[in-house]
């Protein structure tokens, strides 16, 4: 990388002393031949695919479209706090009974709600309608349902809470509230996987 001197002008043409460290990294990348680069990319794609497959597998095994959810509000305190993780199942044959904790979606809204079933009315043919209420709320959820809707039905249910882990879901909440954090995390993960070399 010789410094070229023009007619009285002098600035480095390529690299030079100041950009030494950065040049080493890019030199590394350039030295990695194409085959190695494709290999790294494939490795990365495999990791992403495996993660997706595990998630889809969970959806199949539990019968729920969203088998793991994060609690967003304090309406079920002191049992569940914001940031707790819930594990759901949604088996077709499981009847809905009073006292169960269900995660449901109100028609037209895409944020699911975690509350407890306080009233169940089931007809002989299996048609169920039920009412929910948050443990920490004074009143039942009729104010949260759609305009004119008084009961929930099986089709509104995302799943029933079967297990729970405290605090773990905070990571998701932080990533939602501070998207820069999410991108930074993804960038670091991506860079690590792409540049890590197997010896």
């Amino acid at each position, binding site marked *: 990388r010789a410094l070229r001197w023009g007619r009285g002008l002098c600035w480095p043409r390529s690299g030079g002393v100041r950009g030494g460290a950065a040049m080493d990294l890019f030199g590394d990348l350039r030295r990695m031949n194409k085959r190695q680069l494709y290999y790294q990319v494939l490795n990365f794609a495999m990791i992403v695919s495996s993660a997706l497959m595990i998630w889809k597998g969970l959806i199949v095994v539990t019968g729920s479209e969203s088998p793991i959810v994060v609690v967003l509000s304090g309406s079920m305190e002191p049992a569940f706090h914001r940031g707790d993780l819930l594990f759901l199942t949604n088996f077709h044959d499981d009847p809905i009974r009073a006292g*169960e904790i269900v995660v449901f979606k109100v028609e037209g809204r895409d944020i699911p709600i975690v509350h407890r079933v306080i*009233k169940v*009315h089931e007809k002989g043919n299996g048609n169920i309608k039920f009412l929910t209420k948050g443990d920490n709320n004074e009143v039942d959820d009729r104010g949260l349902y759609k305009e004119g809707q008084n009961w929930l039905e099986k089709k509104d249910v995302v799943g029933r809470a079967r297990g729970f882990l405290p605090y773990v879901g905070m990571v998701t909440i932080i990533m939602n509230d501070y998207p820069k954090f999410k991108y930074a995390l993804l960038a670091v993960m991506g860079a690590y996987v792409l540049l890590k070399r197997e010896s």
Partner: protein
Amino acid sequence: LRKNVEDFTGPRERSDLGFVTFDITADILDAKKCMVFFLTCIHLQSIFDWNVKQLFLYLSAEYSTKNNALNQVVLWDKIMLRGDNPRLSLKDMKSKYFFFDDGNGLKGNRNITLTLSWNVVPNAGILPLVTGSGHVSVPFPDTYETTKSY
């Protein structure tokens, strides 16, 4: 005690509204002690171990009507945290929530079963729902009350 009142919290037809008073005596701690529920003695295992954060207790009424094969209504609930007095001795309790039926199925209904159940909330792990093995049957009268206040 039962009235037929317009259900002002829900659909706009007249539905049956029931009033129930009850006593609860429970000792949710020791394996040797009993949970007494209206003089029926049920043995409980010690529930409050190291992984139990709280119990969500609730009293539910279960019954059948012409309209619906199965109805369950939660009348009363209580959160019992680890460290709270595990002995309950509640007398003459009124139901916390309105006991509205979906329709008029409480009139003359002889078989309303009250059971005490609880949801164990762990510090981390599975969330089981347990039903106490005792239960009480409550019959409702054939006529409506119009004057008595609750």
